[in-house]
């Protein structure tokens, strides 16, 4: 589904690389966790995959279902089925959640050559999806993320994911700043959307999310490189040992 080969990226031409040659393959049905200390490049990887204009890809390639992902505009990637749950979801004052979700949903339908849904029909879909994040319809009348608490913003990301049903969901530190109840709601949301033809990449600093969403593979990102890959037990090892020992591993990898 997703094939990343030797991906390098920086915050602009001439700047040092933050991603220094990442290779990763994600197959349908799989859940991958990418862990690593702060500043290792985890969020950069997530944003580059979604096409954030602040980053410049300086090398490598990314294929999504055989297509050149890096050649696509962010909205083309979204319509192709790549969804990024933002670490810091953006506020859009004045636009209701309901309107925003319908606009995005209808873009998808248009892309598939289907008719756009009117507000009433969309409401039916929305009601189902709201159950996943345990929200009432009143949240739909609030402006997108405007004045939301940190936890509400993250739940809103999961709701959007539920509505848009992406093939590949990338969750960028969706667990950070959540209390245990919110964490469970987010995890349940992700699990509810799991299907054999969909894949998930969890970008996280902590192991605790992985108690709720069991990954097929865990990768450790350190200084822009994947220095270790393994099964879910690798996450526990990281939890126990911290990240410091990785600097030696990283040196070996570079060497």
């Amino acid at each position, binding site marked *: 589904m997703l094939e990343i080969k030797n991906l390098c990226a920086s915050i602009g031409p001439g700047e040092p690389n933050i991603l220094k040659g990442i290779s990763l393959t994600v197959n349908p049905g799989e859940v991958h966790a990418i862990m690593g200390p702060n500043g290792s490049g985890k969020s950069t990887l997530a944003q580059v995959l979604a096409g954030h204009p602040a980053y410049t890809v300086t090398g490598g390639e990314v294929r999504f279902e055989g297509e050149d992902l890096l050649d696509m505009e*962010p909205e083309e990637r979204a319509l192709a089925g790549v969804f990024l749950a*933002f670490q810091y979801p*953006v506020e859009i004052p*004045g636009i209701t959640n309901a309107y925003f979700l319908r*606009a995005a949903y209808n*873009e998808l339908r248009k892309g598939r050559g289907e008719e756009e849904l009117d507000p009433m029909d969309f409401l039916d879909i929305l009601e189902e999806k709201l159950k996943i994040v345990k929200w009432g319809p009143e949240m739909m009348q609030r402006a*997108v993320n405007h004045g939301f608490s940190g936890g509400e913003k993250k739940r809103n990301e999961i709701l959007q994911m539920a509505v*848009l049903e992406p093939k590949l969901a990338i969750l960028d530190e969706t667990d950070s700043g959540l209390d245990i109840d919110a964490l469970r709601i987010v995890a349940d949301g992700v699990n509810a959307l799991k299907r054999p033809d969909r894949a998930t990449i969890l970008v996280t600093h902590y192991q605790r999310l992985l108690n709720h969403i069991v990954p097929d593979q865990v990768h450790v990102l350190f200084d822009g490189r994947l220095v270790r890959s393994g099964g879910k037990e690798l996450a526990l090892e990281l939890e126990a040992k911290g990240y410091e020992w990785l600097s030696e591993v990283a040196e070996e990898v570079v060497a």
Partner: protein
Amino acid sequence: MSSSVESLVNREYKHGFVTDIESDSVPPGLNEDVIRLISEKKGEPEWLLEWRLRAYKAWLKMEEPHAWANITYPPIDYQDIVYYSAPKTVKPLGSLDELDPKLRETYDKLGIPLNEQKLLAGVAVDAIFDSVSVGTSYKEHLGELGIIFCSFSEAVREHPALVQKYLGSVVPISDNFYASLNSAVFTDGSFVYVPKGVHCPMDLSTYFRINQAGTGQFERTLIVADEGATVSYLEGCTAPARDENQLHAAVVELVALEGATIKYSTVQNWYAGDEEGVGGIYNFVTKRGKCAGARSKISWTQVETGSAITWKYPSVILQGDDSVGEFYSVAVANGRQQADTGTKMIHLGRRTRSTIISKGISAGRGNNSYRGQVKVMPKAERAWNYTQCDSMLIGNRCGAHTFPYIDVQNRSSAVEHEASTTKIGEDQIFYLKQRGLNTENAISMIVNGFCKEVFKELPMEFAVEAQKLLGVSLEGSVG
């Protein structure tokens, strides 16, 4: 500046066409004889001619206000303007079917459904083509309620006492350069009178249209809501593409007597000129309302996306105790547009309240100025004002300016002014694109969110139109 926030507008004016109906025009130029001719052609009473001539004399002594507004334009030759032109086809119509097919076609192209559908939609339309009214509808139903809604010329003929009583009572003949000019040479406009205690059951709507090349437009609108009456009035504008600047100097006067409410909504989309700003409309309008009676209310809502230059300050004189003035505005300056707009709230009566919400959007090389005055006079005890003035900039070749004047002469009053400037954030656009919206839809969504507080003041149908217009006005402003 970010890469996705920099390319310029490049859009043909959607309503760019000219209808070739032969016009009955006087030669260009202005003098007393031209004014007498206009008055005669319109069959006006002596007092109105005298009134026009007094305005003309006042105008001759005035200077064009070039210095203070934040706008620049080449000098206007007032002797090169045609002050009167009427479509030849004008004659009393038995029904709409008798309307010139060409005119009907023009209206259809503009999407003005002066027809069954519009009637079913409950909107009475008084369409103005150039300077003379050619069709008025739904009049009978309104007539049963005692509501007068007609062209200004007709009001002069049929209801001279009302016109004489209120004309110039809010905007005097010597008020300002453009208002005086209008008073001297106005050719037509709309008149509304809602009698005591009557709630006008539908939004009254007039579509203005500039058509004749080189014809200045001098519309005159007078709306009077008698005690306890309510009325909502919609003004929508569009004009064909011209390569010559056209002057528009309208005057709108509103009078709200005790307990009356007038809501006046405008969507203005006149031709803004090409990318270099050539050929756009000069829109120098005087709009003012007087809350003459206690507990009266006047509310202005405007969406200004067109014109090369907009100079417009819909104002409210809050004379009656407990009267309320409101101003909600969205102004877009794109390409080379210059908008200098705002309001004046003059608090005279006790416990008078005013609210000002202004949203200015600057893109391309546009310059948007908010200019407002809140004046609380000594007797206006416990007067209250809240002003919020927000600017949004798209790209860094545009400008946003705010000039709020606050003059308070009563200590028991409370006046609050807030202003902010924002840009469309790169992160906002990326977020929306990640959810599948293209850049233009993303911009449109952010801008509509920014303007929401104003749009919610518009009648439903108008609000939808305004949102679309905003999207179209900003098309291509972000690459």
